[in-house]
């Protein structure tokens, strides 16, 4: 550590520049520290919300497949299981995104297919259900969207 003379009178310009440099380093370190404190706090809150969202998202494909199975099996017992699953989701603030028949909105829907249709930009088919948690998108709905004119290149791109 550099030696700095005690009294202001005996400080040389060199000393003063050292003091200024050290002050800057200190301020920078403190500033970064305060910012880190703030961020740690925010991220902790975010993490609490996020971790259940991440976990729930992992289970959504299971729900998808249960519903797929039900389409084929049409079983009363299975219906009850699906309802049970959905009830639990509801308690966590998870809601299905209403998509069919709605205007296509990329904030909530992901277009995987384009079909020719009467109206433009309407969701004509839900390919995979989407869900939101506390109004934020958990998983966007995969949809087929109608266009009055379908572009050939669009067909190509959807495979890219």
């Amino acid at each position: 550590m550099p030696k700095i003379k005690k009294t202001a009178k005996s400080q040389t310009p060199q000393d003063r520049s050292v003091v200024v440099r050290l002050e800057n380093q200190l301020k920078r370190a403190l500033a970064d520290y305060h910012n880190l404190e703030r961020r740690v706090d925010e991220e902790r809150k975010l993490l609490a919300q996020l971790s259940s969202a991440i976990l729930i998202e992992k289970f959504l494909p299971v729900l998808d497949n249960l519903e797929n199975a039900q389409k084929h099996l049409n079983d009363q017992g299975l219906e009850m299981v699906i309802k049970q699953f959905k009830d639990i989701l509801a308690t966590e603030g998870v809601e299905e995104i209403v998509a069919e028949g709605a205007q296509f909105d990329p904030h909530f829907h992901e277009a995987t297919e384009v079909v020719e249709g009467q109206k433009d930009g309407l969701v004509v088919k839900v390919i995979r259900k989407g869900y939101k948690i506390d109004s934020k998108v958990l998983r966007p709905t995969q949809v087929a969207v109608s266009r009055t004119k379908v572009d050939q290149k669009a067909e190509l791109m959807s495979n890219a």
Partner: protein
Amino acid sequence: MSKIIGIDLGTTNSVVAVVEAGKPKVIHSAEGRNIVPSVVDPTKHIVGDVAKRQMVVNPKTTIFSIKRLMGRKYKDPEVQRDLKWLPYEIKSGREGMAVVSVEGKDYTPQEISAMVLGKMKADAEAYLGTKVEKAVITAPAYFDDSQRQATKQAGEIAGLKVERIINEPTAAALAYGLEKSHAHTIAVYDLGGGTFDISILELGEGVFEVKATNGDTHLGGDDFDSKIVEFLASEFKKESGVDVEKDRQALQRLRDAAEKAKIELSTTTEAEISIPYLTADQTGPKHLQLKLSRAKLESLVGDLVDKTFGPVRDCLKDAKIDPKKVDEVILVGGMTRMPLVTGKVKEFFGKEPHKGLNPDEVVAVGAAIQGAVLGGEMKEMVLLDVTPLTLGIETLGAVSTPLIPRNTTIPTSKSEIFSTASDNQTSVEINVLQGERPMASDNKSLGRFILDGIPPAPRGVPQVEVAFDLDANGILNVKAKDKATGKEQSIKITGSTGLTPEEIERMTKEAEEHAKEDETKKDGIETRNRADTLVYQAEKALKDAGDKVPADVKTEVEEKIKALKEIQSSAPIDEVKTKTDELSSVLSKIGESMYQKPGSEKTEGTEEPKGADGQTEEDKAKKDSDSGDVQEGEVVKE
């Protein structure tokens, strides 16, 4: 002074990072992801994931891979080639430069890229909580002057002062700190989502020079995914007889599963792909279920990996360097996570490539470091030391109790309350230890001292605060203070971090090797300590209760005490544990029986607090405390 952010403006994805307190940190987007798709819809002013989701609906207005057109003329062969497959309209604009035409309006690639950069800027501002005005942006090593200028302009349009454009391979080298190494030649192997780039850098006097570059602008992770999807589709056809090629929905599911399996197989040797109800025909629903081994995956994509080595060889030839003469190899891009890729790279160059950092983020990290250097932050940064080995004291049973764990940044201080091990113990010996082993004798003793004058009290009652203070120069001050009398004693130890790197490594290695047996040993000691404490408490409880305890309970407890006392220091641990538990459960009967009056209800749960682990303070080690056999330590009176 505002921070200079580092942005990796990629063809498929972009990443932004910044240096804080000397460490680079990748900034997540508003959507919570670290990477942002380089996709823009200028008519709707949407960027990133949201824009990507509507790509198939608005192929003419959703602009992606704009980097392929950056700074190029319309007549450029690359542009003419990409024209054929890009779904949006590309025209010749001012001075013959390639521009995109969206709903009648022309946009330069700079303007499109500026929208991506604008989002990165906004996300950075949200993260940092301040305005961001300056950035370092990366560009491929093969970008010419016109392309670099365009990149700089894009930044300016986004409201950023572009302090520098640095090469992507150089950024990767910076991220790995290679500018400080003695490496002369560095190879950067970058296999991303859509492109492959190989660069040879030469390091001289702290400056990187690009000797040669090569690559394949249409080879990347997406091609690997396609091969897997092809395989899955053909297997499915074999099994079920159904061809899913025309089934958009099924293909999508296959694609998702293929990507997931590919990622899994980087860490496991077999992945199970399970897609129930993939499709259906007249015979009913059809499921896909198969196991994909890593070996099979490697056979599917092997020739794609081999394809990358063509450009690699050409590049080395241009640089006039033999592959084995390359000093360092760096891996960039998500696909390099694949063991097949790292294996082939290692084989080719004859050395282990650097891959410790996230390959998707390494370029942005390097840009952030460059930004910090330009902003003078790295120079002004105070380099802090860490204490290389754990510091602690010796406690009951010759156990080493840590106070400051190793790799703690110094200066630092820590204090904890300890207590006496025996009744009427009036002094404690503080033995300061350095090392990772759980037993005191296996660690290095840095010094000892004694604090006496503790008022006589039952064991575990006195409160002795032991404080460790380690200053920036590595000087350790240890102080012990009796909270009752205020009496304190201390010791100053210099050179507690003065071990050579070899010694530190040796000690750490030894600790790792002996970890299991040390753990067992420590466990043994703690079990015996617990037994000892319980016996003490049981005897005390009986004494305090006196006549109030019914005779049969008293006998039972005495029996258990005797049984435990007999074996506590000699028997194997499991036996001691069992006998401790037995005494513990019998002990609660004392309280139970005292609360019961004849004719009253039997209540559950009124137990005397269990002694076994109920202590809030740790026992203090003291050899032969009762006999007063005291050892002298170096003492510095404050």
